[in-house]
């Protein structure tokens, strides 16, 4: 091919070339922005712009009275007992449920990845709960966990213990965590399984030859390759742990007992009273907290990545 140097061209040609280049860049940008446009418009309209309005609102006295009050709303919300309790409950729930979910699903994935019969059947079965609407199984959970339910019946009959009020006590949290795990383990297992399958087999084999046992193999090789997946699974579980409200609401209604009262209940009740300033402030606070959590997760992930790359 003919090799054209810049100095061979006349100034006019250079100008033409530059123009051509610019036109193409603009065209590229235009086309790809065109593809993005529907989504961008919608996201702007339904998420970003109203969120900006929210931030403004969180500094105003109320929806009708738009005088600037500084951080008063924040002070109100952050000293609100219901809000504090709700966020504590939510945080505790996520802090227990998410790591537990990651560990359990990793364990099950490792078992499924070893040579056991009927692996794909087990995988399908474990994935099924994900596809069951919460409302459908709530009935069944009620049959089991309510005060006169089956579980208490067994406790009385088989172990002659006293009945436990599962939905009222701190035990309620255990039930909710169980429901969370029931629903979400399947997806995590799938993610871990595919990551395990992607580990280069040669490395495992050579480590076996070098005399590494199963435990050593897991911690030194597999865990390294699983790193990004652990991160992804943690994030997905975190998102899902906020959706646990569905179960709670369907099981216990608007105002559940102490430990089960989560942020979504708080917001719901604020919606019912149309308390805009509190709502917006609560949302902004939660948004900030979420960004901090996710930021920490991202930073840890990139740290881990750069630390073990060599």
């Amino acid at each position, binding site marked *: 091919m003919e090799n054209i140097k810049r100095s061979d061209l006349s100034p006019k040609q250079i100008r033409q070339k530059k123009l051509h280049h610019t036109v193409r860049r603009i065209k590229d940008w235009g086309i790809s922005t065109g593809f993005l446009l529907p989504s961008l418009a919608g996201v702007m309209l339904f998420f970003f712009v109203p969120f900006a309005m929210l931030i403004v609102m969180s500094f105003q006295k109320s929806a009708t009275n738009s005088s600037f009050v500084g951080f008063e709303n924040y002070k109100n919300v952050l000293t609100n007992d219901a809000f504090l309790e709700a966020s504590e409950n939510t945080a505790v729930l996520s802090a227990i449920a998410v790591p537990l979910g990651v560990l359990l699903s990793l364990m099950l994935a490792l078992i499924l990845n070893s040579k056991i019969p009927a692996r794909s059947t087990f995988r399908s079965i474990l994935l099924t709960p994900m596809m069951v609407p919460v*409302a459908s199984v709530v009935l069944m959970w009620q049959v089991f966990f309510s005060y006169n339910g089956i579980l208490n019946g067994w406790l009385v009959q088989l172990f002659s213990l006293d009945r436990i009020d599962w939905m009222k006590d701190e035990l309620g949290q255990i039930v909710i965590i169980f429901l969370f795990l029931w629903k979400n383990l399947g997806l995590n297992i799938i993610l871990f399984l595919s990551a395990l399958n992607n580990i280069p087999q040669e490395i495992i084999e050579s480590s076996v030859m070098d005399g590494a046992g199963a435990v050593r193999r897991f911690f030194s090789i597999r865990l390294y390759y699983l790193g990004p997946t652990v991160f992804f699974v943690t994030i997905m579980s975190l998102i899902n742990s906020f959706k646990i409200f569905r179960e709670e609401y369907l099981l216990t209604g608007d105002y559940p007992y102490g430990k089960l009262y989560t942020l979504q209940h708080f917001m719901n009740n604020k919606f019912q009273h149309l308390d805009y300033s509190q709502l917006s402030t609560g949302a902004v606070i939660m948004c900030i907290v979420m960004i901090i959590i996710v930021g920490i997760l991202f930073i840890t992930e990139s740290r881990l990545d750069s630390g073990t790359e060599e």
Partner: protein
Amino acid sequence: MDQELRKQRRKQATLARRNVYKETPDVSSYYSSLSPDERIKFVSRARSVNAREMARRTLKRRIFTVIGVIVISAAALLAIFPIFFTFLNSFMSSSEIDANYGVIFQSLPGGSQGAARFLSMRPQLQLIPQQVSAEQYSRLLFMTPSYLFRYWNSILLTVPIVAGQLIVACLASYSFTRYRRKRREILFFAYVILMLMPFQVTLVPNYLISDKLNLLDSYASIILPGIFSTFSIYLLTKYMRQIPSAYIEAAKIDGAGEWQIFAHIVMPNCRNAVVAMAILLFIDYWNMVEQPLIMLSSDEKRPLSVFLAQVNMDEIGMAFAACALYMLPPLLVFLRGEDYLVEGVSKAGIK
């Protein structure tokens, strides 16, 4: 280096090479020092040690497998049990349900009337109905239209959201895949953050804008934010970025326009991911509770997911059938598309 020295070294090396063959010592080991009889003994002893070691290993592996199978089976049983339970119970007659579980629902709020009748009873877990009857289904389908209306509501809400979000998300993730400048990446990051936000946060702005646009208490207030939700954009973009760029470049050289690349190269390549997304979205929105609770104030517009929990108490006689019918569509979708789901989700999740 000195010429002389080099010559000397070469000579030495040649000698050394020759000596390799000369100086190889006789193979004299413990084994060769044995007499033929002893040799046979030695070999058989080594064999038995080997065999014992192998047996030990096999046993160990088998024990691990058995433990693994037990754990997995327990997990699988737990996973599948509620589904079976609901389906099997949906074929009981109403009176049977009442006899078995009546006591449970009397203690719940909303069902306190006539509690005394059940006080002495114990709940009984029954899996196989004594008499298979379709009574629940016939009552549900022909005598209580409210369930059917709610069912229809669920469909009306879910289908447009899934279809709309997929179309919007495919276009957007194509754009995020093809055009990767700094500002665009920042926008993508904003999308990711938005995806990670729990409902508790995103519902407030949604509510606000629906209020401003006078959409409250209409389906648009749920469908429109649903369509523009960014969850599927994140996963689809991750998937699309794994398509080899050589495909796209080749098409470009052949003169394909941007739309042609999108429709004929990229879309067919991420069919799995799109199907997987469709399944995930379908179950997610079929399942939604938060949005209808807040956006829809009139009860008759709410989908079955919200309605089911409220009705359970009074009409447990047919609640099981309603639950079974409600979980049927997602389960069917899952059975059809499980492989796509596994493939699509796992490929997007790895990288």
